[in-house]
């Protein structure tokens, strides 16, 4: 299974690397646009020092993890994010008649390499934040070790949300507007401490759209903001269970699928 995935993905990368210049410019632009967003946040915190007790480096930890995670998902699963076209235009039928799982096929069809820029931006923000925290005299060993776990788990969480949204699209036949609600708005929200938000939003981010487990919850512990010792363990656990549920929903949806017959 994995060997097959590697083969197909390698082919996809090879085909995209025919256009090296395009890859470099698109990745750079994506990264630059995301950096600008962070600069505005820095401007605010430069003036007002902190937001509910989180200084720029601490917010930067949240921001970097969230940015890198969402970029990871967008890098590896552009076809999941763009799944609406498969249902609307009946392209899914071609995938269903092949001897491999349609999900694997979707994941190997395409990589959105421009998202590497977002990944670099996220990791850069993390590095800056970590060095800033170190300069403040915090011990950053735990944070450094935990960051890759958080980014990977976050990537899986976003992927699960995307997959669940695609699963629902089997019934609703549209997904683009839904994604704003399930991915884009939460991705923006998870750049900052979730404790800021109204209660109903908090609940949402701890349950149906579980982005709080990716960065906010473990950072409460690792940055010494009164989190319990086991919070960081919840990060991969939440990612695994989100994936399990999303996969279930997707499977139910695909069984329910009726082709448009075109």
């Amino acid at each position: 299974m994995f060997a097959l995935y590697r083969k197909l993905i390698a082919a996809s990368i090879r085909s995209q690397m025919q256009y090296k210049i395009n890859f470099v410019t698109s990745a750079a632009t994506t990264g630059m646009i995301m950096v600008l967003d962070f600069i505005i946040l820095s401007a605010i915190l430069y003036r007002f020092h902190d937001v509910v007790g989180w200084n720029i480096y601490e917010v930067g930890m949240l921001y970097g993890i969230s940015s890198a995670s969402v970029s990871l998902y967008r890098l590896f699963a552009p076809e999941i994010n763009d799944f609406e076209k498969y249902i609307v235009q009946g392209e899914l039928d071609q995938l269903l008649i092949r001897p491999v799982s349609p999900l694997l096929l979707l994941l190997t069809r395409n990589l959105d390499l421009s998202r590497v820029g977002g990944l670099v931006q996220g990791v850069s923000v993390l590095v800056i934040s970590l060095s800033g925290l170190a300069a403040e005299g915090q011990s950053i060993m735990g944070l450094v070790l935990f960051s890759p776990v958080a980014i990977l788990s976050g990537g899986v969480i976003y992927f699960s949300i995307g997959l669940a949204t695609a699963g629902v699209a089997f019934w609703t036949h549209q997904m683009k507007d839904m994604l704003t609600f399930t991915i884009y708005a939460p991705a923006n929200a998870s750049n900052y401490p979730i404790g800021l938000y109204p209660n109903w939003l908090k609940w949402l981010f701890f349950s149906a759209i579980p982005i709080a487990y990716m960065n906010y919850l473990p950072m409460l512990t690792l940055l010494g903001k009164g989190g319990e010792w086991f919070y960081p363990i919840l990060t991969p656990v939440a990612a695994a269970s989100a994936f399990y549920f999303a996969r279930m929903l997707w499977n139910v949806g695909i069984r329910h699928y009726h082709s448009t017959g075109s």
Partner: protein
Amino acid sequence: MVYWRIIRKSYRRNLQYRLSHVVNNVASSIFGLVFIAIWTGVLSGKQVYGPYDVKTMGYYIAICQSVLWMTTFLSPGLNVQIAVRSGAVSLDMIKPVHYLWYMLSQEFGRLLYNACYRSVPIGLLLGLAVGFFFPSHLFTYFWFILSLLLGTYVGMLLFYLAGISSFWTTEIRWVHLILLSLIFGLGGQMIPIDLMPGMIGKVAPYLPFSAMIYYPVMTLLELAPPYGMLVQAGWALALTVVALLVTNMARRKLEIQGG
């Protein structure tokens, strides 16, 4: 009036998407709520210079999110690049209406739809969160509408210029993204531009991006500087001239290539 007819038609075409836009409006309001929450967290318990206390900032962000749907969330390149790619542009250019006004009318119809089905619902939803702001003078409404229309016009021209650049390039995607970042970075979407540090805070009020977001919002809040409308009108004029010139250049290029 032929342009009014184009506007009406374009408005009606957009009515078909009402339902999916309801979901989108809720999501868009969440963006607003996030910014409001950040500012509440930043400002609570601090001494703030100028008019920006928690309440005013809440109003600012709420109005901002509504205004964005009129002035900033336009069609990439006003769809000029699509017509260029498909060749339809040559048919549009020989129509007995001026190409620039034709494209702007199309877009404006869509924006009127946005005003009714995006700006108003989002404004109401966010108003529930931060309270409703009513200006103290009746005249403010008039100035606000004027400022909003100027902002919309400036926005449409900038997007049009991005779109018409496709006559000379193959991709407008990056031009569009860069334009969008400039608007979000310097237009006052997340932070009122007079709060920006250093040089940026000094320059930003005179750029066309602030004409699109910052001045309309501040006009409604009755906090806009007196020269705000001048900056808007100045850019509207300057960009009109540029757009007309570039349209003529594009038309000539079309003639050279033989339509």
